[in-house]
């Protein structure tokens, strides 16, 4: 059986979702190719009449576009941005991203649930970015999310899996793909998340700030594939656990 990532009924072979922010548009094609990415994120902004280059012209054909709702501070704004993004005619995917905290840029889980519910009802394939809270993840699942995107660490921080224990709980308890987003700074961290059972990794800053963007995209692809293989094959001995009682516990059995 082929190992596919399924989001809202769409199948993907790659488990690497590539961000397109903070680097030269001309590098996007090489990054997509080297990273093997099949999904790329975008943002919606006011258009500029002077700008002659448009990002859509740099994204290879066949790559699924995942517009985010960055800039939204509440559910209403996120819904508005999502609807406008869909109007661009690039599909039904949307990454809900709502922040009204300008200092840490942490997602607002409450507003995110509200936006997810509205957008899922309108037929969007909703991938909400969230702080890894089990109850909220359940609410998102009930609201119709196609996946859940918990943050690994503050966005852009490259700190790695600061929320590891909580992401593990989401992986164990939620019947949706768990896509680790934000804070992943190195391929080794992406690999670790995949070993834990994450369905995919979303990375942007780590690649955008690398010395060689396409080469780092390739490094992430390999790390994600390695982690996935390790997860699928079933890890061997993880930890030596168990007490050290000297008397047998089962001595009473007849």
């Amino acid at each position, binding site marked *: 059986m082929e190992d596919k990532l399924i989001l809202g009924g769409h199948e993907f072979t790659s488990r690497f979702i590539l961000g397109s922010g903070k680097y030269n548009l001309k590098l996007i094609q090489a990054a997509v190719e080297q990273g093997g990415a099949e999904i790329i994120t975008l943002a919606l902004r006011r258009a500029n009449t002077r700008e002659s280059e448009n990002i859509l012209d740099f994204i290879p054909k066949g790559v699924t576009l995942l517009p985010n709702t960055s800039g939204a501070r509440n559910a209403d704004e996120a819904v508005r941005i999502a609807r406008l993004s869909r109007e661009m005619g690039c599909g039904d995917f949307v990454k809900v991203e709502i922040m009204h905290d300008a200092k840490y840029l942490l997602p607002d889980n409450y507003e995110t649930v509200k936006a997810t519910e509205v957008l899922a009802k309108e037929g969007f394939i909703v991938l909400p970015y969230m702080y890894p809270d*089990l109850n909220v993840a*359940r609410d998102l699942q009930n609201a119709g999310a196609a996946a859940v995107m918990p943050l690994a660490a503050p966005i852009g921080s490259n700190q790695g899996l600061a929320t590891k224990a909580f992401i593990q709980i989401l992986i*164990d*308890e939620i*019947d949706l793909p768990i896509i680790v987003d934000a804070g992943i700074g190195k391929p080794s961290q992406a690999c670790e998340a995949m070993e834990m059972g994450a369905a995919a990794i979303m990375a942007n800053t780590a690649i955008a700030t690398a010395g060689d963007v396409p080469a780092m995209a390739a490094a992430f692809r390999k790390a994600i594939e390695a982690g996935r293989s390790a997860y699928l094959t*079933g*890890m*061997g*001995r*993880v*930890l030596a*656990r*168990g*007490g050290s*009682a000297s008397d*047998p*516990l*089962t*001595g*009473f*059995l*007849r």
Partner: protein
Amino acid sequence: MSEKSEQLYEENQVYYVDSDTLPPQALARKHRLEQDPSSRTDHMAYMPGMEIIDSDVKDKVVAAMNDFDYSVYTARDVERALSHERCSIEDFKALLSPAAAPFLERMARRAELETRNHFGNTVYIFTPIYIANYCQNYCIYCGFNCYNNIRRKRLSFEEIEHEMKVIAATGMEEILMLTGESRTYSDIAYIGEAVKIARRYFRNIGIEIYPCNTDEYRYLHECGVDYVTVFQETYNSDKYETLHLLGHKRVWPYRFDAQERALRAGMRGAGFSALLGLDDFRKDAFASALHVWYLNRKYPHAELSLSCPRLRPIINNDRINPRDVGEKELCQVLCAYRIFLPYVGITVSSRESKSFRDGIAKICATKVSAGVSTGIGDHEEKYGGDESGDAGDEQFEISDSRSIGAMYADMERGGLQPVLNDYIYV
């Protein structure tokens, strides 16, 4: 009879007992039900009045159980399962397989660790009270079955109050109220009133009665019930059909969804089990745990618990026995439950011996009964030695007859902290 039904008839012979007092017509009907499958109703069809809920849990559990072939697991799979930090469904299957038998001590140690991590060293003590033993079902292994010649009794509200006073005087704070499965003799209104009496004497009330509709569970919850236990007996519906020959209990799918209806009605928790030994105990244990696992995912707030009853001798039939489920097998099942479902309560009843219950409480049990009688209205007799003599007969023979005081002391002696209640009624 077809070859298959003949074979099943033979297999179930151990359970069939005829009473001298049955009128010839009733006896003839009993024999026909036992021998002729075509005389029995469709056990998968709901009877009038039975609520059907929209849920896919049943299908998921049955599919997984049918798919479970425990013969394919090896020592290597068990080793791997024990080395994993979290127990997957696949790991759980390995732990239930015969290949895990040599790993029992290691499983017990792992289970103990999980129990202590989630429950500390506490063990809850409760007592059951049977308020009626009338039953309209013919379940061939059960002492209450409608063809069994036993003294029947339904306690009046005065008698219930008296029994409860006797029990409450021992310090008990949690009670499990049971009836035979008769909607005629133990209707919802009767049970509801009995629960209201119990509310005056106990802080925590569970029921183990016939499966109900959601509105009935909601009413009983308003009366004061917070926990509902329903045993599925066996998750193999084909085998179930040959054991539950008559009555509403015969409807397998309605019984399966009972806990889910109870949770939807606002109950705080639910209890589950198969009666191990009726059918393939490994598959039944697997299905029981998976039933809990799916409902936990669907109703994460619910407090869920597993029991582990084995078959016991009954009045008029002392040949009934737990078959291939020995203490070692039971221990393996319970350790596997604990490792797979670290957060779930595990109740071990007085069907098991003192030595078994003392031992298993150190490994994985979180709740034990004490001061138990499965008869009707005989607590004073049992507690005070006053044999006035009109008590109703018992459902099955118990093995561990310790009083609450003795149980409390024994648990403390075993390094555990007995708890009578830590419960807030809302």
